């Protein structure tokens, strides 16, 4: 089975750890437990014609306490850029982080996840604001680690992107 490293990148408390937990164990915890350092999980994703093993690196939300260590990105085949739909600032941070990631990882596939979309009333990042990202050719998906909305799907989409990307490169 092919194993692929992917990373979750985004500001702290956007729900990276929660997304992984929802995906791996289908659970959710309302309580915020900040992640320190790296947590690696593994899970298989079945695609139409093959199964991939994801090695998922949940990276500590970078802030004044922790920098994004680019060595953690090494060997990643793709990544999720995660933002919190209720915090406009997390979009800015994600864009800035993404620049750093691009410098390290060149053009691996990534998916922008707008998480916490269950909090419809508190939403502060409109779909219009994301339009530039979409126009720039990014794949964007709305998720909720709490309700599970699109979480599994996001991993499948990224898996498919990795496969397509690998095929395109071997052509």
């Amino acid at each position, binding site marked *: 089975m092919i194993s692929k490293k992917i990373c979750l990148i985004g500001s702290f408390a956007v729900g990276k750890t929660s997304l992984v937990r929802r995906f791996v164990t289908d659970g959710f915890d309302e309580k915020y437990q900040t992640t*320190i350092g790296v947590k690696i999980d593994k899970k298989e994703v079945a695609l139409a014609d093959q199964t991939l093993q994801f090695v998922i690196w949940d990276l500590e939300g*970078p*802030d004044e306490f922790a920098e994004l260590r680019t060595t953690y990105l090494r060997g990643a085949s793709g990544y999720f850029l995660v933002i919190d739909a209720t915090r406009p*600032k997390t979009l800015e941070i994600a864009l800035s982080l993404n620049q750093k990631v691009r410098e390290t990882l060149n053009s691996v596939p990534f998916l922008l996840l707008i998480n916490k979309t269950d909090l419809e009333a508190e939403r502060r990042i409109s779909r219009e604001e994301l339009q530039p990202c979409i*126009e720039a050719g990014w794949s964007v998906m709305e998720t909720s680690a709490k309700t599970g909305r699109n979480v599994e799907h996001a991993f499948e989409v990224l898996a498919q992107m990795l496969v397509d990307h690998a095929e395109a490169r071997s052509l």
Partner: protein
Amino acid sequence: MSGSIAEDSLSDGFFSDVLEGLDIALFERICSSRFRPIGRLPLWFKSFYSPVEHQQYDLAMQSAFLENFLIDAEAYWESPSDKRSGSRLASGVWSEGGETVARPLEAFALVAARRSLLAIVDLSSNFEDQRQVYQRARELALGQEKLALELSQKQRELQAALEQRVLNQESLEVIANTVAGNASAVLICDAMGRMQVANKALVDIFHIESGASGQRRSVLERWLQEAEGAYPEIKRVVTSGSYWEGEFESQGITGEKKWIRLNIGPVLDSEGTVSHYICIANDVTDVHYGNHGQERFEDVDPVTQLPNRHSFWRKITQLIEQATTQHQQLALYYVDLDHFKRVNDSLGHHAGDFLLNTFAARIAHCVKRTDIVAHLGGDEFAVVAQVKQLGNIETIAQRLLDSFIPPVTIDSTDFRLSASIGVALFPADGLDATTLMKHADLAMFHAKELGRNQCQFFKPAIGARFLNRLNLENDLEAAIQRGQFELYYQPQICLAEETFVRLEALIRWRHPEQGFISPAIFIPLAEESELIHKIGLWVLNTACAYAQQFAGQGIKVVVAVNVSACQARRKDFIDIVEQALQDSGLPPEQLEIEITETSFLEQMDEVVTMLSKLRRMGINVSLDDFGSGFSSLTYLKSLPVDNLKLDQTFVRELPDHEESRAITASVIRLAHDLKMNVIAEGVETVEQLDYLRQQGCDYVQGYYFYRPLPGDELPPIFDQIMEAGSIV
């Protein structure tokens, strides 16, 4: 010798003793994938990893994290960058094991006695404390982020609501009552920055004496000055009637420093001039310090991915420091798209962002990689280039302008946009970032005033106008006494036969420090106080005296005097005019009063009565700027005027612009039907003149013939003026 001692003392036995009780897993590297434990391995280690053979571990295979770290570790063992003893390479923290048994670990690569060692440490014992600290700090940051977000939304809503009330002409007292107990500080000023409404929060937070309403050095003025450090364009933005919001550090009267979040919303009257400023402010000192550490992540503009204002500020400051020590020259280009708002409003946000993106990329291509390109927000960009040769400054400016020429295609439609650019040079135009930015911004604004799609270099005279707008009122008072006003006269050329000279008197203010200040700037200021009446009186008297001085030479000079709406509404206006005629001896038919449409907006009946009286006295009345405002052709016939002055915005577009052609033709036709003459303003080309003549326009005025001239330059050319219309 010493080597053998080390060799001995670093035997496994020694390590075992040292490691006993330290809870560290220590390995020696055998080959790239094999590690041999030194001493006894802790229990937790054995629960995560198992040996492959003979007490050897393949750590890379067992842990994805270590696999990654060992790549760096190999390089380190190969040639440790820091050869001092005790140096090591740390992996950073990771957590190993499932959810319930997870432990925070950290690995270190080190070299001792020429052996490559790997230590894995369990951080559990003091990890929880550390985690708690982080957790608390992040929760705090989250809370503050949320507060800031809510606050800015609240401020915006309040400001919009108050603006609506001011526009609805609600009395300021009523408004003051409704905001009295508001938690946000509310300040409403008149156009001069004088305090009109100040609620309790404003007084409390910023220690303003509530009784000092209308005080000279107003709170707004102080804020503008303080904010200028970080936002050099702020004065220009608000005094030209645009909305502003931001955060800056403010020093209260008590000397105490605070961060304030401020929104300034200028309220525009029907003429488009600022009537009030509505300011909402909050003390965000706490929030600000809380968020400080995050700033480095907010360096990129989300739309264009260029450095944002914040990071630009840092970069330009650095660059200036460097340029100062290395005696380099820099050019700062402030680029503002023309009519971007129109595009954004009509095509929508997406298309707007798309355009911004496209132009951002093009702008970035105009300079070297080492130069700075930033998106300051909205439709504003900044470029800082190092100047190696003087000629380069203009080359880059031209390149920037040219980069806007190719159209941008959206939904298979081509869009064309231009930009206005202002340039300020270091060190010539400013020695620090704030001054340079301010000057580049003003130069940009000047480029806009001159018709956009061009580049202007900063000149001190450009700056003078805006910078002290709020102080100008004081100077205005003195200007009359000190004789700083002058009248210039611009000939109006008759396109038929004429036996007299027609001149429009135009006021000029020669400010002792700021040079010439345009009436477009100071008349609105004067109108907000009684000063307009003093100025008006001076103009009237001076113009009448000027025209009358040629009577003795048998030359008839008709002089037109501009009268502002508030002058015209004064009860004693007729008396003033009569007095001026009497004092100068000028026959009434040689005086013409020019009023604007806005004079009729209020008290229309009184104004109409007054004008009718003037006409009965023999004085001519012209309606200025016709077509620029609300005027409709239908009500024209009820106005007691002799002449219509066709606004230059139409004239400028002649003869190519179809709509302007149509308007011009119908205005002339209608005016003639109503027995009025038409005077076209702003005639600059022979094509415009030909078209106007063809349509039967009576008089033309503009640079094509003459600019406004000082009084003493006219008498020698009186003959030319009278013949100019028939010669061409």
